[in-house]
């Protein structure tokens, strides 16, 4: 388990250093994620310990956002003053984003399916597209 924790901390640390150097305008944790992923692809193995560490920590993912969310108290005045636009932007914007993404992917999938059907029933049936 110690080896797994060390691996995560080392990649995270390297990510933080790369961010500080200003080479990449991305937070250290995301660079760390990419580095650990490349590390796993390179080794082609996932140790039991690393798998267990990931499952354990990711089960607590929701807990880790609580302190930042409590910051709502510190910004109560701005939030109260612009409550309606902020609430509408968050609720409306998020629902619109979900809908737009899901619907565009539905389109991609049905196009891919049609293309597959077309090549399956192949030979001279170009009019299937209509």
């Amino acid at each position, binding site marked *: 388990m110690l080896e797994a924790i060390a691996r995560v901390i080392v*990649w*995270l640390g390297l990510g933080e250093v790369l961010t500080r150097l200003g080479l990449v*305008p*991305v*937070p*250290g*944790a*995301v660079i*760390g*994620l*990419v580095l*650990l992923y490349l590390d*796993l*692809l390179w080794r082609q193995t*996932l140790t039991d310990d*690393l*798998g267990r*560490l*990931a*499952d354990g920590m*990711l089960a*607590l*993912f*929701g*807990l*880790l*956002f*609580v*302190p*930042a*969310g*409590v*910051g*709502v*108290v*510190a910004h109560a005045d701005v*939030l109260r003053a*612009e409550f*309606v*636009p*902020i609430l*509408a*932007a*968050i609720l409306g*914007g*998020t*629902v*619109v*984003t*979900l*809908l*737009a*993404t*899901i*619907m565009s*992917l*539905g389109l*991609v*999938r049905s196009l*891919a399916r049609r293309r597959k059907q077309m090549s399956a029933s192949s030979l001279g049936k170009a009019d299937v597209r209509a």
Partner: protein
Amino acid sequence: MPDPHAWASLPEQPILDVGITVLAFLAAVRLARWSGNNPFLNPTLIAIVLVVIVLNVTGITYTTYMRGAAFIQFLLAPTVVLLAVPLYRQTTLIRASGGLIAMALLVGLPTGVLSAVGIAWALGASKITLLSLAPKSVTTGIAVGISEAIGGVPALTAVLVISTGITGAIAGPAIQRWLRVEDDRVTGLAIGIAGHGIGTARALQISEVAGAFAGLGMSLNGVLTGVLLPLAMRGL
């Protein structure tokens, strides 16, 4: 003879703030489970409300609370790194889904930024609120950095990001059911792009595929927004 003032040392240690947070989350998870995982009883949301109530009742200030709660917040970064594990487990599926992933980002990233800023602008929000709102769909760590870079209020952005994540975690599975989405890759990508880490936490409960694609959507959306939004703002 036990020290009668032993309890008085608690507020000086992180144990009190960590304890409040952990117990609030435990209560929130119990409540969510008891309700049959009613989506509106999102554990993160309930825990935040409980902690805010406790702080109000006890008179503990946010600054004091954060001194201890920072220990919990610190774990966020290594946990984001660990998202590489579900991604690795789904590598074959990810390799086969390049077109889907590209399309999700092409649509989801600009929609996430423009819909929020557009709605708030139409309803007369101030410029600083608009700038703080722009990176709202991006995971907290990145969003705060973007907000700072484009002239928003980073701490306000953090709160807006959390609210967005909770909305995504609640609305995502509801929309999945409503539109009868059967492909967990689609649900995962949408929830990850619209609702970052909190959405990903919810997607992990749907299936490992949904969780991995949510993590993927979240990371790619975060990285790309982190690069593109500050550049786009400089161009304006």
